[in-house]
């Protein structure tokens, strides 16, 4: 046990506290300094995690914390996406009198997601889920005078409260059945466990985590939050908790014996999420809501990777790559909406390419990447996922994902067609500012570069990507 093994998480926690203090001390007009502190904390966290990559994979802190490729990738990814959210908040939230504290909430939400991803103990998982949820509700409802934002936060809170209780019951039943919540000890004690208690745990854990993943049956909050929450929160909440939740679920699925139906259950959730999300997105007239439903369907693809964890060595690397490329492209799409000062009705995007060519192309690239058009990042992720799924003998799920991808092209193209084929508006299209531009540029650059360099993510995660 070495304190250095959780140094990144300590840096993030201290960074969040510092950000909060800075926000409390500084006058209103200097609140943006807390954003700079937050960025420094994120950079420090990512750097510290990067320095741990060379450490041999192990369970540390009395087997509570998994130090492996999944934790590394999740931590660095969460830091990167949170940094983009901080950039987006710089102009979007600046008029809010409590602008500074917003950053502290982002950092704590990021910490919650990282704890979820790295937890090797069910109780610790609950800590991560709770931290991520509590900050998430506040982030969603941060526009206190906007009915949409408060409604999104309220809905998020209600569904979240229920889901977290279901998760907690699942953990309790798991403890009752196996006598331990440590993942390292679970496989040995599961064999003799009471099957009825286990069945309860097998329902509670995935259903509870589905809320964080934004997948069926815990998906109800996603479109509302995507549409109503402050835009940086929407970008953050449709990505960061998902990363943590998917990896937490993958660790759990990897533990249970192959004879159990866990894989099938996750596969069914994946199938439902991708199909429901896509069908609901088809007719949306609001781009943020459309992105929300698309996020539900993308959660379905991610669960496809979770379902393949037992059957294929390719699954975890593929899952990590998919999470990275989804996160980058989804953030890019939200960032463009933010840059356009939140114009979100489909008709407001008409002819954007002739008025504002670069944002229009950034949005086009982000959406094509979400479809999975090569050589953008989304292709590498989907390709790796398809390979793992077929390798795990889940070809039916891959076939369903293919059909869903074609369906998803229809609604992504509605946005693209609006940008490229409609008559441009008469009035000028105002942009937010250079910080938001920087956020778009970073996310789009990631979408392009990761398409060609996705091998780096796959490579880090080859040997033993998932502990225990």
């Amino acid at each position, binding site marked *: 046990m070495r304190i250095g093994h959780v140094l990144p998480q300590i840096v993030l926690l201290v960074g969040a506290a510092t950000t909060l203090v800075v926000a409390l001390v500084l006058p209103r007009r200097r609140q943006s300094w807390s954003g700079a502190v937050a960025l420094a904390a994120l950079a420090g966290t990512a750097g510290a995690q990067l320095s741990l990559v060379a450490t041999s994979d192990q369970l540390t802190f009395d087997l509570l914390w998994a130090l492996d490729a999944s934790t590394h990738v999740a931590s660095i990814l969460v830091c990167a996406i949170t940094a983009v959210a901080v950039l987006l908040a710089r102009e979007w939230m600046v008029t809010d009198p409590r602008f500074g504290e917003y950053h502290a909430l982002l950092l704590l939400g990021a910490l919650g997601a990282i704890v979820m991803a790295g937890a090797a103990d069910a109780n610790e998982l609950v800590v991560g889920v709770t931290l991520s949820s509590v900050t998430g509700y506040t982030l969603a409802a941060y526009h206190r005078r906007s009915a949409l934002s408060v409604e999104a936060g309220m809905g998020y809170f209600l569904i979240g409260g229920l889901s977290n209780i279901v998760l907690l019951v699942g953990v309790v039943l798991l403890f009752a059945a196996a006598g331990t919540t440590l993942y390292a000890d679970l496989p040995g004690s599961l064999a003799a466990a009471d099957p009825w208690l286990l069945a309860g745990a097998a329902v509670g854990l995935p259903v509870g985590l589905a809320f964080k993943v934004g997948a069926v049956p815990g998906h109800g909050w996603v479109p509302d939050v995507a549409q109503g929450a402050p835009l940086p929160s929407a970008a953050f909440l449709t990505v960061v908790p998902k990363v943590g939740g998917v990896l937490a679920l993958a660790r759990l699925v990897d533990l249970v014996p192959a004879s159990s139906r866990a894989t099938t259950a996750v596969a069914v959730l994946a199938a439902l999420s991708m199909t429901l999300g896509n069908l609901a997105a088809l007719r949306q007239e609001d781009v943020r809501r459309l992105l929300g439903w698309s996020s539900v369907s993308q959660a379905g693809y991610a669960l496809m990777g979770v379902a393949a964890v037992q059957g294929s060595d*390719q699954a975890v*690397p593929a899952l990590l790559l998919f999470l990275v490329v989804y996160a980058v492209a989804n953030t890019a799409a939200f960032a463009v909406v933010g840059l356009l000062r939140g114009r979100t009705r489909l008709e407001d995007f008409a002819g954007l390419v002739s008025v504002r060519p670069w944002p229009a192309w950034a949005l086009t690239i982000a959406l*094509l990447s979400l*479809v999975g*058009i*090569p*050589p953008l990042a989304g*292709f*590498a992720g989907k*390709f*790796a996922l*398809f*390979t793992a799924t*077929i*390798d795990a003998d889940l*070809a039916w799920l*891959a*076939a369903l994902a*293919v*059909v869903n*991808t*074609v369906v998803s*092209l*229809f609604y992504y*193209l509605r946005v693209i*067609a609006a940008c*490229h*084929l409609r008559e441009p508006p008469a009035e000028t299209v105002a942009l937010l500012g250079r910080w938001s531009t920087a956020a778009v540029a970073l996310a789009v650059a990631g979408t392009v570069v990761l398409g*060609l360099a*996705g*091998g780096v993510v*796959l*490579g880090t995660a*080859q040997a033993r990507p998932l502990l225990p």
Partner: protein
Amino acid sequence: MLTTAVLAPLAGALALVGLRVGERAARWLAVAVSLVPLAAFLAAWAAFDSRSAEQFQLVTAVEWLPTVGVGYRVGVDGVALAVVGVTTVLFTAVIAFPADTRGRARPWYAWLLFLEGVCLGLFVALDLIVFYVFFDLSLVGMYFLISRWGHAGAEAAALKFFLYTLLGSLALLIGMIGLALAMDPITFDMRELIAAQPLAGAGHAVLVLVALLLGLGIKTPVVPFHTWLPAAHVEAPAPASALLAGVLLKMGAFGMIRIPLAMMRETFAAVAPVLGVVAVVSILYGAFVALGQGDIKRRIAYTSVTHMGYTVLGIAAAGGLLAGAEEARALALTGATIEMVAHGLITGALFLITGSLWERTADYAMDAYGGLADRVPRLTAATVVAAFASLGLPGLVGFVAEFQIFVGAFAVYPVLAAVGLLGVLVTAALFLQLLQRVFLGERSGYWDGLRDLDAAEQGSLGVLLALTVVLGVAPAPLLDVVDAGSTLLLGAAG
């Protein structure tokens, strides 16, 4: 050399997006850039050794996603070289052809160059995923060309095209993954897959083959997966139609040669009779439906279904047997390849001609015309040559191709070949009828002011049609290279 041919147009497309140049400058810049791949092709042609025992030459390989066996691998055999040749020629001709860019010249030429790079990348790919990347990117390029510069219903047609062919390409991807997973360690390297024949005797080989053929069949297209094609062709601007028919359709047939025929010989032989029947149905269906069309562009579009049917028939015959009739099967495969070259040149020219008509009259209806021959002699001459080439007149390249396909197919599937020959007859009828209605008979005074082809149009069409004559009269150099490719391909399999 091959990589230059792929990257130069892509870089040119980016440059056109960045540079603020006018319409004329954009066009000439694009023509100049498109000469780079043409030159690279000629250099590759010169460097290619058709007597070598090595199937793939001029190979380059760079790692991309090493853990899943994906790399940027390119190279050509005789089959690919021929298709690369017609691609470079047709793109230069189409880019030089005057087009109505509706005030958006730079994006128009940028997309054309993008598409050229993508098509060439596909034809030289020696890695399944590289092939797939370019296969998919061609959809994006074509979607924007059709939807932004097409006719009234273009957006819907482009959407249908994109959705339909994306379904096809994803089916193809699933098939490719099925192939690669059968290798240990997993690899998408085409040369290794061809050598290993990974799914021979495997139970799910038929499923993989069906996924591959579904994907490639939608792109080709074969009946019953052709329904996206007429809509896309009718709504697309004429130069885009020329490229769609001349180059993009070849991706499907070329893929059939490159992937299932080469990599799944055993399973392919079992399924080949079905593919042959589908091909013959496409031939006849395309020909008869074309005969019923009063819209010139639609009529030409349906003849593409017929001609791609010939190609698929040749491919089915080539892969129909595991042993025996080697010469006939090599002949069929060579014929199928030459048909791709011929159809690219001829149909490219035909669609460019419809573009010239539209520029002048904004009308595709055959009945609107009549007796144009003495008013626009050069346009008439070009159409006559192209139409005769398309219906397979001896002395023109279409004949060389169809003759070889049918000779080869008779040795393997005599009944199918005999039925397929009917298609040639109907094609002849439909083109003669078109010539007669548009160019002969009484001319309405309405067309007295019609302009004949201008210099640029003559240049582009002249090159394409001259090549159909030259390759028809003296096909030997082309045949040498293609023969080398098809013999090695079938030989490597046998």
